[in-house]
């Protein structure tokens, strides 16, 4: 048993959902209790997909456990086939269904559906989301491409004059910038003169997987999801794979050379890309202040290794730590850590990550959404480089991580949260300035300034309860005005209770509520803002 507050990865069946949802005509029947449907919102809310994930949940309840949950599964699978008419089906169990051992594979076989049905064995109590995605993709590839495997010993040959063809493997639903990476790398390959046979699983059909073998080689964009399938394709179809992940300018150049070698073409033109701005920006003088900034990197293995390389070799930062939550790829991260003379942190416990970051006195954090929270607490600038994702990681604009444009995006995203050079100097020189206090965040980060304004507003005059008694006794403004001796300056005063009530309003709308209430009080001649007046104003403005 492990105590977990936040988790980097979901259960393995969520990985399977990422494959099914990425594809066009594959349906997943998941034996699962009520509540497991929460996973749909990952796709519809975080990724803002316009269609529900193609997943049918059997939704068994406690009262079914004594009865026939197996029948429930079969009915759900048959109904799903009839309703959705998929070209291939995945069947499996979530963590609870795994315990009741209904054997979805056997049960669906008995249905004799006229499509390929792939039974998934995803051990929920051992494995996690990325493993589940990799295993699901591998099983699907085996099931659909398997019938087309050439006899052993048959040599792969490319007809003369035909362009080289590759498959792009690994992009999934709910991936970190997968959509834009695919666009970027597809463009790069087109410029090189390499044809794409199949992109999978993102936007692929079952029929597409069946013709994976038509390509000359495979490009593994995301080893976390595609390495296992690419290994099988190598063994069975003899397709070599491109292993360099093109994140960062250096890696993109290496990737281009690797592809060019496999495709038998000259990479020179592609390497001289006019779009390579990141390299020049890093050289320009205003980037000098980036030199030696202490950076900590954490994420999935692929993105963490790539980020550390860019930070160190392309931006001149100092990598003070690197880590990953992907145990399956711990070796790769340990290798990378050696390059920077640090020890890799391999853990799923974000508290451990937080402790390490605090101890290392980090100036820039490159991590996941969890590290973004850590950074907020520690007051460290942060950029997100890897899943787990958040709605913000699906920007409306084009924002790839891969290729030359990806390198440009990374330059902007990482440098943006850092304090700009001159601003840093000013802070050092004018410490006495009341707006330059030790807690002040850089002005371009916004937050701190508005909080100070709220604090200042909170110091509006308030009256002690006794002094209010007379004025508040009558709610009618005419009366309050008549009774008052001194002429009113037109500025309302908050009663202690009114102020306290205001404090209960969520902070992000409190400022507006305060302004509205005061405007209302001024317009209606209310001198003392009582709780009643607060709500009168609220009702006045509501609509």
């Amino acid at each position, binding site marked *: 048993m492990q105590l977990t507050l936040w988790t980097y990865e979901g259960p393995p069946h969520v990985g399977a959902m990422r494959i099914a949802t990425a594809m066009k005509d594959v349906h997943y029947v998941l034996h699962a209790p009520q509540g497991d449907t929460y996973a749909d919102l990952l796709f519809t809310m975080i990724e803002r997909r316009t269609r529900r994930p193609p997943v049918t949940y059997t939704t068994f309840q406690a009262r*079914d456990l004594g009865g026939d949950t197996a029948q429930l599964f079969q009915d759900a699978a048959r109904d799903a086939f009839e309703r959705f008419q998929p070209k291939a089906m995945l069947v499996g169990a979530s963590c609870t269904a795994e315990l009741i051992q209904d054997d979805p594979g056997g049960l669906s076989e008995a249905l004799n559906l006229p499509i390929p049905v792939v039974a998934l064995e995803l051990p929920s109590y051992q494995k996690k989301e990325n493993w589940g995605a990799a295993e699901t993709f591998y099983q699907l590839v085996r099931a659909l491409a398997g019938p087309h495997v050439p006899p052993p010993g048959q040599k792969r040959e490319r007809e003369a004059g035909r362009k080289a063809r590759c498959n792009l493997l690994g992009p999934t639903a709910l991936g970190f910038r997968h959509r834009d990476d695919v666009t970027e790398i597809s463009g790069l390959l087109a410029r090189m003169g390499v044809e794409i046979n199949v992109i999978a699983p993102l936007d692929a059909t079952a029929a597409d997987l069946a013709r994976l073998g038509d390509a000359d080689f495979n490009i593994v964009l995301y080893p976390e999801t595609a390495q296992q399938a690419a290994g099988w394709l190598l063994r069975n179809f003899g397709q070599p794979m491109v292993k360099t992940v093109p994140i960062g300018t250096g890696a993109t150049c290496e990737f281009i050379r690797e592809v060019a070698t496999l495709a038998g073409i000259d990479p020179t033109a592609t390497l001289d890309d006019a779009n390579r701005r990141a390299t020049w920006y890093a050289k320009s003088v205003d980037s000098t202040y980036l030199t030696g900034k202490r950076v900590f990197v954490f994420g999935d293995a692929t993105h963490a290794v790539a980020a550390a390389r860019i930070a160190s070799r392309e931006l001149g930062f100092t990598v003070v730590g690197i880590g990953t939550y992907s145990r399956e790829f711990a070796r790769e991260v340990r290798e990378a850590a050696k390059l920077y003379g640090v020890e890799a942190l391999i853990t799923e416990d974000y508290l451990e990550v937080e402790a390490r970051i605090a101890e290392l006195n980090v100036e820039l954090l490159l991590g996941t959404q969890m590290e973004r929270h850590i950074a907020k607490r520690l007051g460290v600038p942060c950029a997100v480089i890897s899943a787990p994702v958040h709605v913000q990681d699906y920007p409306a604009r084009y924002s790839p991580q891969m290729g030359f444009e990806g390198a440009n995006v990374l330059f902007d995203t990482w440098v943006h949260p850092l304090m700009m050079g001159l601003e840093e100097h000013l802070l050092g020189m004018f410490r006495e300035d009341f707006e330059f206090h030790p807690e002040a965040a850089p002005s371009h980060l916004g937050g701190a300034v508005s909080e100070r304004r709220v604090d200042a507003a909170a110091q509006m005059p308030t009256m002690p309860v006794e002094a209010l008694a007379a004025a508040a006794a009558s709610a009618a403004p005419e009366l309050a005005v008549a009774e008052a001796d001194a002429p009113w300056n037109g500025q309302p005063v908050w009663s202690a209770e009114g102020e306290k009530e205001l404090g209960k309003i969520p902070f992000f709308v409190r400022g507006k509520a305060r302004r509205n209430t005061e405007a209302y009080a001024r317009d209606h001649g209310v001198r003392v803002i009582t709780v009643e007046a607060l709500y009168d104003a609220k009702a006045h403005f509501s609509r």
Partner: protein
Amino acid sequence: MSSALAAVPVVVQSRPAAGGCSDAPVLKERGQREVFCGLTGIIWLHRKIQDAFFLIVGSRTCAHLMQSAAGVMIFAEPRFGTAIIDERDLAGMSDANDELDRVVAQLLARRPDIKLLFLVGSCPSEVIKLDLSRASERLARQHAPKVRVLNYSGSGIETTFTQGEDACLASLIPALPASAAAAPKSLLVVGALADVVEDQFRRLFRAIGIPDVQFLPPRRSTELPTVGPNTRYLLAQPFLSDTARALEERGATRLDAPFPLGVEGTTAWLEAAAAEWAIPAPKFQAAIAPAATRASAALDRIRSQLAGKRIFFFPDSQLEIPLARFLSRELDVELVEVGTPFLHRSHLAQELARLPAGTSLSEGQHVERQLDRCRAAKPDIVVCGLGLANPLEAEGMTTKWAIELVFTPIQGYEQAADLAELFARPLVRRTKLAA
């Protein structure tokens, strides 16, 4: 204060004659349910009870659910966590108990501020029959008197979404101190409410003439309300059947009322208590008039945006029937279908009686068939969960995501217009975007 408003008379709705949908047929469905499990209740309960920690004993799925459903809303370290069961725990039960003890010790060492620990059962812990009531007794002994340990199940095989709060509150009832035998009649409001709403109700009850009001759940576990035969309780939420049963076992008596949504619901809810305390009608009227008048006026301004619109409810929080009543009676919204995960006929009797006769009611869910009905009916607005909202928007429907109704203060007079606004906003937005 605006004295003009006070002149508007407040009409208190008398109890409706049996009718409406009291005996209406209900379409009962079984199939895929697009709803959360009871664990999700922890998201608001852990903020409500400020010195409590909710430890789910479950799987990675449970932890991932909590994070996905709550992740965007949590600013600070949460007071909930998951003890994730792994392979080794599945091998033998004694191990699992030792492991749980270790995890709890680790947690309490980290969070010395915690005074109340809930062990929350999940689907996997129920299926492997991990006995959390025994575990909580054992842990209570170990950590007494610093920490009280209780348990309940939020598993999806037993609870739907808001039923998790019911199970949690029901587990608290045996822990409530008994009120003195000779204690005078006292009012208990049951169901988690936003703090600001609670304070408004407290003030209203005081003005009405019922000063002794307690709330469950309390804001701190050290401020548990007392309960006994002198207790009269009002349900503030429609999903608390187990809690109500547990309270009645302690001798408390439920005051039958609709739920405090909208002006009518709030007035009738307060009136149920006023009647029990035999408060004279003029005093009651005077106490509620300012707020009720203000709320009615605010609703008048929103009505034009909602009147005549056709609404379709997918089941979610069990708030659907009171919401439908509010929308239909106070804002002239037409009810196409009102789906609810579970229909508690006696607690909702007054709500059902107020629904227009012939309203189409459904209980449980077969999400695909319900989507078929929804598409065929082409409602103006669909109330549904997060998994369905964007896909339906993409199909051209206007939706209101139901979970916001649980995470927003909507009860009472001052929130009546806010509640109406929640339904009006998506409609207004659609016309703005189309323009």
